């Protein structure tokens, strides 16, 4: 209940920042347009763009509420409700963004395996939200957090997808499922990607929750 109210109001807050919203929504589009001539490349870039946009959005949403959240805790809300609500809002927004770009790609290019392409984008958006949360938890200042996310996305983009470095990056799952969706490979790519995505989500969401549970902890003050 509390988490839903937090999510709804977080969404409303972001929705009012029109310029920022337009920039976040259009960011994946530039990624897509750059290599529009190559279906595989453009889809992978688009997916990475979605991941970058949603994680950065989450970073700012979580950071912007640093003044409010301790007060919500004092009023009686649990850390899970407060932080979960914020992540819920950006996850829902991210999945909606992914759905819109999936439709664009389907109309513009035609997709051989549309369900797999949808999974690739939605999973990336779902992983991106707690990733942004984790970065916000570790690096409480916005500039530092944004630079960290930039580094992560750049490494993900440039690293050899078969190498260890790419696998350690959070958006590797999108790349694997993308290979299944575009290059008509066997289902092992799909399962590998899915497992990586779920694991990454668990690590990021668990990490975010643990750090905030510690930071927003209230001492058990005995009644005087």
């Amino acid at each position, binding site marked *: 209940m509390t988490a839903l109210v937090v999510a709804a109001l977080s969404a409303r807050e972001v929705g009012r920042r029109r310029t920022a919203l337009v920039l976040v929504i259009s960011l994946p589009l530039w990624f897509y347009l750059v290599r529009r001539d190559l279906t595989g490349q453009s889809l992978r870039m688009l997916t990475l763009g979605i991941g970058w946009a949603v994680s950065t959005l989450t970073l700012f949403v979580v950071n912007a509420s640093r003044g409010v959240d301790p007060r919500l805790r004092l009023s*009686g809300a649990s850390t899970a409700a407060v932080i979960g609500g914020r992540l819920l809002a950006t996850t829902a927004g991210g999945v909606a963004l992914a759905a819109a770009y999936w439709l664009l790609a389907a109309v513009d290019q035609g997709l051989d395996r549309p369900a797999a392409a949808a999974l690739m984008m939605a999973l990336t958006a779902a992983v991106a939200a707690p990733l942004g949360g984790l970065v916000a938890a570790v690096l409480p200042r916005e500039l530092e957090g944004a630079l960290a996310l930039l580094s992560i996305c750049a490494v993900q983009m440039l690293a050899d997808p078969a190498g260890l470095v790419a696998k350690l990056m959070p958006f590797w799952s999108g790349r694997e499922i993308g290979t299944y969706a575009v290059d008509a490979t066997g289902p092992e790519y799909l399962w590998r990607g899915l497992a990586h995505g779920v694991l990454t989500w668990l690590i990021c969401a668990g990490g975010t929750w643990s750090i905030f549970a510690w930071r927003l902890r209230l001492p058990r003050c005995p009644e*005087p």
Partner: protein
Amino acid sequence: MTAWGVRFEDELRRLGVQPGRARQLADETAQQAAECDAAPDSLFGPAHLYARHLLSELTTRTLPLNGPSGPVRLRLTGVGKRYRRRTVFDGVDLTVRGGEVAAIVGANGCGKSTLLRICAGLTRPSSGRVQRTRRVGFVPQDAGTAGWLTADEHFTLFGAAAGMAPRRARSTGEHLAARLAWRPGRKQLTQHLSGGTRQKLNLVLGELHSPDLLLLDEPYQGFDQGTYLDFWHQVRAWREAGRAVVVVTHLLHDLQHVDQVFDLGALR
């Protein structure tokens, strides 16, 4: 019981009344409405507001008029704070009871805000012991609000944190705002409010869940003279309602309104 009675009883319990006592008060209120041959909401108004009113009336005069002797709401014993090697303060002893207003004074940088955050539980003391009541309202000096939300949305958000339904939270917030002579605009974003009005919002949010202990950090910044008086009037009302209030201040003429003064600067 009527729907009004159920809401009334729920609100009493949410405000910390024992279940048995809440049921008894709800029954009596139903019976009072019956003997006046009136519907409860026409006789007493909205259930959640009457619950607050009744509780504050019941605690008001049960306190002796001279000197506070309500239950202890906050007790600091030998509390100190160090950052690395620098000691901000040490050995703070402070006891605040229900129906009492305490002021924390001292020069800039002597740790007044830090001490208040320690009282709230948002900052950990390096030494000493903090005992405080569970129901606490904290009003920070700045921030603590979301610039892109309206006042009503803040009421909904903070109410949800305390387990209040959105509509009830909004009407309670508007009721409390009216006592500070403020009528929140429906569409006005918090970032467009003047500094003084934002502080009023801050105060209402600290009080929304009806805490027993209020911790205020120089809450009157940006207030004009009239609002400043409204504020102290409100503090007096809280005191009479048996709440404990701690105010951080640097204005010496505020001290006429308080029961005890704790000079943090004098410790060193």
